[in-house]
């Protein structure tokens, strides 16, 4: 599991909760030294830095993370509306920002987008669950050693579900998160793709994606209890 760096230590309850509910593992750090000492062997997958409490320390940390031999990316900055002006001088220090108090959905979407764009250059990122493995760097999915020939949307849907095992998603949520409402097929599109995925997973693995009656879909079972 990839670790995100999170500042400050401890992070505010809103931020911690949002990261938890989005299913991101994180390690809180208080400063650049801690960022070095606590760094997991495979490196930071990214950073979420809140500048709300101590803006100077926050920008200082971002600066340090960017100056490393292998700069940490992406960096998502959390600021207050009143701090927007301060961002101007620090554009190179972050990849995206979000206003506090961030809705968990927004944080997750922004992080997901950032990680998608930048998170695959540095190290392999694999989602593994039972017989299924998704390599996020190469976009390849393997079930029981067999490569799955997925279309892009099938891959995206499987990636999203597999990243949140045990969590039930409604069709609307999946449509919003995976398709981004671009598609006008409506929520029924989700059913179509789920069926296609199950067909490709094969009979013995189709159960990985479970239909939760009159709610939506769930992939596998949870790794933790919320």
């Amino acid at each position, binding site marked *: 599991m990839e670790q995100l760096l999170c500042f400050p230590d401890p992070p505010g309850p809103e931020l911690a909760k949002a990261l938890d509910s989005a299913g991101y593992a994180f390690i809180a750090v208080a400063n650049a030294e801690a960022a070095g000492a606590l760094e997991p062997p495979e490196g930071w997958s990214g950073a979420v830095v809140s500048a709300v409490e101590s803006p100077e320390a926050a920008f200082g940390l971002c600066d340090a993370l960017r100056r490393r031999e292998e700069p940490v990316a992406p960096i998502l900055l959390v600021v207050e509306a009143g701090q927007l002006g301060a961002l101007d001088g620090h554009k190179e220090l972050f990849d995206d920002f979000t206003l506090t108090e961030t809705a968990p959905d927004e944080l997750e979407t922004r992080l997901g987008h950032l990680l998608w764009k930048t998170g695959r250059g540095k190290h392999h990122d694999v989602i593994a669950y039972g017989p299924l493995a998704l390599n996020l760097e190469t976009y390849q999915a393997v079930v029981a050693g067999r490569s799955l020939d997925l279309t892009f949307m099938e891959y995206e849907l499987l990636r999203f579900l597999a990243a949140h095992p045990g969590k039930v998603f409604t069709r*609307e949520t999946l449509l919003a998160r995976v398709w981004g409402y671009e598609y006008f097929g409506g929520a029924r599109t989700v059913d179509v793709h789920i069926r296609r995925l199950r067909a*490709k997973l094969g009979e013995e693995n189709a159960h990985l994606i479970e239909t939760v009656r009159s709610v939506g879909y769930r992939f596998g079972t949870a790794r933790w209890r919320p």
Partner: protein
Amino acid sequence: MENQREYVLKTVEERGVRFIQLWFTDVLGTPKTFSIPPAELENAIDEGMTFDGSSIDGFSRIQEGDVIAHPDPKTFQILPAMSGGDATVARVFCDISNIDGTPFEGDPRHVLRRALERAHERGFSFFAAPELEYFYFASSEADADVPPQPLDSGSYFELTVADLATDIRRKTVLTLEDMGIPVEYAQHEDSPSQHEIDLRYTDALTMADTIMTVRLLIKEIAQEHGVYASFMPKPLAGVQGSGMHTHCSLFRGDKNAFFDADDEHGLSATARQFIAGLLEHACEITAVTNQWVNSYKRLVAGYEAPFTVSWAYNNRSALVRVPVVRQGKSESARVEYRAVDPACNPYLAFAVMLAAGLQGIEKSYELPDEADANLYTMSQRQLASAGIRPLPRTLDEALAAMESSELVLATLGDHVFEWFLRNKRAEWDEYTRQITPFELIRYLPAL
């Protein structure tokens, strides 16, 4: 779009794809393809591939011959390995544009997209689930004296251990599932060597793409086993032909617009108007849903095919059938249009069916009475007095009905409309010049 492009390029690299087939369809629904090596793919996605359209049926125009194929990265799919080739091959469907980038009017995919957009403007998404029937024959060779040779004499649900055709069909279904094409149902049909594969619903554009894929795979897998699969609508006289009954539904977001819990049959006013539209314009769209001379040999009384403009809840002789909606299954409310045959161009067929139904909704057509009697046993006079019109009985009649249809003209666009009529008239003319075995056997000894 950026991610999709990235996904396709990365997958081609990772999986060692050797060729990418760019797929599109001519006006008659024949699959067309050209292959490009991976090195050209990035450019193909970004810029499209220019080719000479004048060689494609229905694409030719007098002045400009060149058109551009733009791969639709959403449809990128690695093809299942066929015996005899170990290179990994992928396919991607293309939209065709003119050199100036505007959509090419002769592209059937564009015709369907345009029809779907019109539905979308009214808040509807159109879903389709076809039942493809086809035959397995010993070979594709045709001889005037010998009818095509079926592989068996099996019939409906027949269970035989050594049924080669069933093996082939099973392999086909598994291959389709591997490609993410869920099969609802597969079975031996009524006629010797006739089979049916029912596809689960998708949005109509995906389904039209899927039908192109399925038809090709059915043929390829048959060929691998040394037999021939045919979608000819009526290859054998005296037994059922092959149809492509298509279940249609309209959704408004999450809600099935065809369902109404307050109606005795669960059928909404929208559904009634849609059916009324299909019926009102049925004769006009038949040339498109049944585009060959042979299609009309199927649309006769007595073989589970429709031959009248009629609808019913559960009457397999009617043109439009409304299957019973099971309790709590509001999303399955749908209407089944039974005229279509599997040798149609699915893009154009879906486009005209949708347009006819939408017209019914827009103009609030009244649905005529249900045809609850067996239409096959009714005389011409009984049908006429019940106000039931016949469907076109020949390609010629169908073309005449189409030619005067504003609806079909608007749906297909000038280019496809004119080319289609010209091409099909020529086919009919040629047919009328034939001396058939029927005539020789019946007339030569007698006259």
